[in-house]
């Protein structure tokens, strides 16, 4: 067989088939309406400013006694963790008998420009933790951080270890200067102080496009061409649109917090160097002695595995577990494999430690 087995006739046939699928898909799309996100029933139990703490309805009669608080990133929206039926980390955790809370940071506006990491970590996050502790009559709860929310959870645990029983980090950057970290490489020389003085809050669209630019051909080109193959299936079309909705639903970043995160974490790599300060307190990861489960994604192009795995050498915990997920940064929450792998692993790890 020749390497290139193309001839004008076969190319023409393929183009015709492609166009037909696209036209059919367009017809399907006109009947879809707006797609819904979020599947698990939940109640808003605490609010402060734009931050909302949600409690998900337990799905077993006797859930694990110590609840889990999920701390999401400021970037993008937290419904990624509960996207739809069968593609929901939260749903999986509930089915595994966990009692789950989630922080929604909301959409910062110009009035939130001065919010700092101190406000987010020692303010909003701490209030949410205290609320859950009081509600359940517990001294300590379980904390699960997602991406940047994992970094926040690490800082929080280093400062408030008396309130955290077990810590789970997922696709969490710790060492921001690993060789394969393209995102860090790209922003290293940006004058963030100037940027925040100029723009105030950082537009979410800018961050989102930078993330997509890391893989422009696949994420902004091939993905759509691939989708044409399955777009006449209404359910697949809805699934695709849900992901699109999430990808482009990007809150602005509060200026002061963004400045600190980019400057102290991405540019100075202060978390592993011990130079980060939240408020007037230094963050010393070595202070962390609670059990830690560190979950990372093997093919993560935003937070390379090495950036997450660095955590093992930075904390003092004698109970440290790593779990590698064979997938990417988003697949770890929404892929079918993730649904089979992560909730049971998290639940089993927590059950062992809560009962002990």
């Amino acid at each position, binding site marked *: 067989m020749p*390497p*290139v*087995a*193309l*001839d*004008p006739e*076969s*190319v*023409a046939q*393929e*183009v*015709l088939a*492609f166009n*037909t699928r*696209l036209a*059919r898909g*367009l*017809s399907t*799309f*006109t009947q*879809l309406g707006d797609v819904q996100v979020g599947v698990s029933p939940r109640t808003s139990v605490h609010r402060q400013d734009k931050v909302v703490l949600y409690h998900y309805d337990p799905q077993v009669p006797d859930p694990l006694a110590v609840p889990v608080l999920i701390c999401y990133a400021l970037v993008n929206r937290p419904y990624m963790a509960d996207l739809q039926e069968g593609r929901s980390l939260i749903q999986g955790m509930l089915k595994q008998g966990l009692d789950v809370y989630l922080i929604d940071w909301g959409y910062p506006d110009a*009035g939130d*420009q*001065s919010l700092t990491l101190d406000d987010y970590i*020692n*303010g909003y996050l701490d*209030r949410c933790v205290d*609320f859950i502790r009081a509600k359940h*009559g517990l001294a300590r709860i379980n904390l699960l951080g997602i991406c940047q929310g994992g970094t926040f959870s690490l800082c929080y645990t280093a400062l408030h270890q008396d309130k955290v029983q077990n810590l789970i980090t997922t696709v969490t950057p710790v060492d921001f200067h690993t060789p394969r970290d*393209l995102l860090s*490489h790209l*922003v*290293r*020389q*940006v*004058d963030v102080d*100037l*940027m925040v*003085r*100029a*723009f*105030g809050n950082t*537009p979410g*669209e*800018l961050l989102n*496009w930078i993330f997509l*630019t*890391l893989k*422009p*051909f*696949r994420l*902004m*080109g*091939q993905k*759509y*061409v691939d*989708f044409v193959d399955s777009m006449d299936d209404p359910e697949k079309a809805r699934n695709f*649109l849900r992901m699109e909705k999430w990808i482009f639903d990007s809150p602005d970043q509060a200026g*002061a917090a963004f400045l600190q995160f980019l400057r102290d974490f991405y540019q100075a790599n202060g978390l592993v160097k011990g130079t980060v300060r939240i*408020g007037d307190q230094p963050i010393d990861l070595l202070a962390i002695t609670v059990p830690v489960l560190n979950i990372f994604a093997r093919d993560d192009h935003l937070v390379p595995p090495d950036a997450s795995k660095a955590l093992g050498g930075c904390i003092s915990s004698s109970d440290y577990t790593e779990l590698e997920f064979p997938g990417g940064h988003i697949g770890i929450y929404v892929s079918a494999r993730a649904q089979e792998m992560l909730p049971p692993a998290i639940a089993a790890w927590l059950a062992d430690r809560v009962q002990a």
Partner: protein
Amino acid sequence: MGQSDNPFHVTDWAALQRRYLDALQALGFPGNPGSVSAASPWHNAFDYWWQGVSASLPAEQRSFFADLVRQSGAFLACAEFFTPLTAVLARQPAAGPDWEREVRRQFEALQQQLAAGTPPPGMESLLGAWKLPDDLWQRTSALFARLPDELLRPIPGAAPLGGNQSGNADALREGARLWQEYQQVLSEYLRMLSTAARNGLNRLQEQLLGGAQVPNLRALYDLWVECGETAFNEMMAGAEFAACFARLVNALSSFKLHTRRMIDAGLESMHLPTAQALGTMQEREAGMRSELRAARVRQQADRETLLRLQRELEALRPAAPNTAPVQAGETGD
């Protein structure tokens, strides 16, 4: 609704364009690089179709579908570019010297056109992904700043920026200088993207000459994506691109900050709150939040001390009547 009744399910245009291309082939179309692309029959027909149906789409899906159609257009342009090559290849022995020569000839012609900044029609779409970083940056910068001439007259009708004509002229000149600086860095950035585009095509050529199996058009498109992605990543991982990216962001930030100050000057002249004044208020508010948090921590510690003392007191006086203890978890919200 059956397909025949469905206004979106019109494929006659595609069949028409296919017949058009067949006719070209039948006329002994020689496979000159860019010749078919110049006609871009599929791509043009596709555009025509999209213009016809896009207005009928629900508003919430139009933007998504526009992206989808743009990328589909790139796929079709890929077909158009490679069709003349396939016509020649169909007449050549596979992987022989003539085959290699023809592949090289096609790619060299294309590279020359790209280097000259005059890609053939259709190739714009074929290189759509390469253009995306450019697109996205333009879109992103549009979020921050309107066109400079709009920005440089911030308050229509107001005495220009407080009436300090000499200062205003300086500010306008500085704004123009900063905008020009941004445009220069943007040009440099786009040149780097163009270089990466050519590197991607080089990789594709190497892959084809190296015997990569391409059983159909889709496989060719996927290979092009892979080559492009690799070339782009190589560029992005280099120090030069990161420095250029930073200069671009910094230049845009400088321009934006300047315009923000000019707008502030205009607002101040009208005794309206400025962004700087709002920033000052927010900083004070942040200080108060910080003090409040410290007070909350002290309050919590005091509560716990009180609770401990109450317990100790109760232990010392077991017969005393019960008093309601303060709950340790209360936050006083």
